[in-house]
């Protein structure tokens, strides 16, 4: 049931007292340390559960296509890659389009061999609209992909 709460009328204040109080509250900050994290030099604090970039372990991938099936945005497509891997007989590996990935982490959850996992990397800004990562690029860290 929705109830109505009675609120008392605020007391009428002497003029200018509230103004001075507000200035005091703001002025107090002069004596505190800034909380700014100097981002490019200092690594910002990232929560453990924050994940962004998808990584792939090429040795663990078995080519089961479960990640492709579970992706809600059709970001994952299986690609043929010639590579010696005893477990991956079909030789198909996922490539991911970051241009549509919403980081729902369904692929990480469903992967039976934990080949797809998400990392803390977030510095993925680019000047070109080319966000499709091939399986090899997915297995590399972000800095190497850019090079």
């Amino acid at each position, binding site marked *: 049931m929705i109830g109505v709460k009675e609120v008392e009328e605020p007391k009428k204040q002497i003029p200018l007292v509230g*103004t001075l109080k*507000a*200035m005091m*509250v*703001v*002025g107090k*900050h*002069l004596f*505190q*340390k*800034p*909380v*700014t994290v*100097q981002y490019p030099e200092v690594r910002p604090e990232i929560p453990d559960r924050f994940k962004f970039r998808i990584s792939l372990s090429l040795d663990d991938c078995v080519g089961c296509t479960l990640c492709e099936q579970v992706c809600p945005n059709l970001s994952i497509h299986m690609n043929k890659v010639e590579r010696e891997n005893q477990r991956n007989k079909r030789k198909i590996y996922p490539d991911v389009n970051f241009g549509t990935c919403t980081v729902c982490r369904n692929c990480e959850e469903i992967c039976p061999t934990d080949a797809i996992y998400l990392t803390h990397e977030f510095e993925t800004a680019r000047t070109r609209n080319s966000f499709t990562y091939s399986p090899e690029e997915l297995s590399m860290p972000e800095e190497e992909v850019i090079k």
Partner: protein
Amino acid sequence: MNVLTHIAQFFSPLGHYISYILAYLFETIFFIAFVMVVLVMMIYLFRKYMARLQLRIGPNRVGKFGLLQLIADSLKLVGKESILPRKRDDFPYKVAPVVVFLGLVLALALLPYGDFFYIGSLTITHSGVSVILLFAAIAIMPVGELLAGVSSSNKYAVMGALRGVAKDVSFEIPMMISVLALVMMASGRTSSPLNLESLVSTQYIPYGIPEVIGLFVFFIAMIARASYSPFDMGESDSELVSGHSTEYTGMRFGLFYMGMFGSIFLGSMMVSLLYLGGYNGPFSSDAGFVYLLIKTMILVVISFTIWLSLPRIRIDKFVNMGWKYLLPISVINLIIAGFLTLGVGLL
């Protein structure tokens, strides 16, 4: 000795007339450069102070402590494309930012600055009626804003300009009446009470002490005239896009931006001259300019704190405040000043 004679002495081999013409020219250039440097420093100070109050750092990437930030900003503003609205009123549109900036320079040129060590007096103009001239000069800036708003054929600009005019009209009258009280008090002590220099020199104790009410009214009116928060209804950025300067790009906008900071500086300077003793200080009178700058900077910081801590007042309440409260208070202050003058005269 003052700045003018110093420069004229430098050019004295060229003859009397030419050296004085050159001296006037150079003094003008020096003064405008001084105003520019002061404004750039004000904007930098404001940014750093705002960042400090919000627990941030503020600009620190360009130069040491971000000191070159304003140079980068002005380079960018100069390099921007200049967009002219198609339905503009051409001449007023182009002349408005200059009018605002020149009004500011004109008003600053009329103030007495006191002595500065071996240079001597820094005061530029010596007029017998400089109080009246000063109020004429600070009435120019709103004209520029009105021109800018009306000529740029933009509904937000027109609204912002009209609000600015409403604000200026309702706050200039209490301001002038409180200065009238000062002139009245000074008239018992000097023969030329309409001169700013004699207004300053008659302050054996600063006028701010007997005239506390006048100081209060004048300070609020000064804040209102400079049109920043809590009185920024001319440029209220959440409902009118950017007020009278909505259509201006590049350096034309930069002039408006500097004019706003300039009117804070001008207002603080006027308050410290008229009410806080100006360039009078406890020690040597050679350092008069330094005293004046210190007083002005304290007032500027107080203004910035007001700017950064108070929300905007609604336009009708604000105009009511001017007409219904500040005007009667200033008239009462005038009567008090009359009695004080009488009392001083009897003593």
